């Protein structure tokens, strides 16, 4: 269910990566509202993480309003639509920014990028 890859040398603290992972799963639709998240222990075992790290991630997710923690029964996906939208927007923007940084570091020019964008989006539209 989870496509999981923790990058041990990424600048992000591990718990942030876990949070990111969960968000990706929710945004992609693989995790829907009402789905149960794996228990802390299970996720820790799968990812080979310290359970405290996973606990911290879940705690933060709950604080951000992405998931809900119910005593005795675990953690559940419960994201309000508005939240989901803002999340999606934020993440897409992050991805985009990252793409742009990479592109510029390869020496891409603004014009090339615009052309490239248009072409791919047209293709997308055609293919849908």
């Amino acid at each position, binding site marked *: 269910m989870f496509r999981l890859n923790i990058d*041990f*040398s*990424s600048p992000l603290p*591990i718990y942030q990566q876990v949070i990111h992972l969960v968000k990706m799963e929710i945004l992609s639709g693989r995790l829907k509202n009402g789905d149960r998240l794996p228990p*802390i222990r299970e996720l820790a*075992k799968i*990812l*080979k993480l*310290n359970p*405290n790290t996973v606990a911290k991630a879940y705690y933060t997710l709950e604080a951000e309003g992405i998931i809900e923690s119910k005593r005795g029964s675990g953690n559940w996906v419960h994201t309000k639509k508005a939240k989901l939208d803002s999340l999606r927007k934020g993440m897409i923007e992050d991805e985009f920014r990252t793409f742009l940084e990479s592109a510029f570091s390869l020496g891409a020019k603004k014009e090339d990028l615009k052309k490239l964008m248009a072409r791919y989006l047209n293709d997308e539209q055609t293919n849908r």
Partner: protein
Amino acid sequence: MNKQIAEVEKLTVRIGKKTVLNDIQVQLQKGESVVITGRNGSGKSTFLRCLAEVILPDQGSVEYSPEISREKIGFISDQISLFENFTVKQGIDFHSSVFRITDFDPTLINELKLNLNQKIKTLSAGERTLYHLSLILSQKPQILLVDEIIHVIDPFLREKFLEAIIDLISQLQTTVIMVNHTFSEIEKIPERVLLMENGQFIMDEKSEALGTKIKKIVSEKKIPEEIPCIFRKESSFYQEYFIYPFKEELRKKFPHDYKDLSLTEIIKAFIGDQYAKKRIP
């Protein structure tokens, strides 16, 4: 979470003329996971043995908080010491009676498909390690001390071992202290890193914090002197500079591509530094 369970004060251990542990001072918290690392012969195993009370110091002490009794300390040494002539079953019975365990959980034993009547000396290193671990798990230990055995056992059993430790941490908030200098899959279990050199801790940092405090610059040219470099690795194409302590101002002052490092690389840098400092006797 931040309750102290052990206090090590002025711990000194000598073997013959050599001072193996030199006036060590450190505190351990309940539920924390610690990795003790360093060069070979730096005293890591000796320190772990002191925590297990298998070595008694010449000076100083290891004080555990009152709720920690010796029955709640689990210790697997690099010798994986057990009574070899006992059968698997005899070992379980013995351990249970000594540690007053009433409900031994044979899951691990069954997973390994161990024959209850085979002698412990016939077990492979991996089987033995997991067998010892299953004995310790039944103690419901508050403290788990593991010496460098993780990488001696095969990857399959290694994973089982780690999963057992993770279970322990999440269910009992066991304080886990491991001695290692290879990391790979266990990288993200420890929250705290203690680096030992010459019988003393020369670094004591949270693993998360470490990631921000040490970076690497890969460059063909020499980097400015002001950048604090603790270790340098040369190859024919480029040089790697390990920067510690790293501060964000450095990024502004000396713009370079500061790379983030894995725990293994971090430790390698520190140890490399020690080797560099070492004088020829």
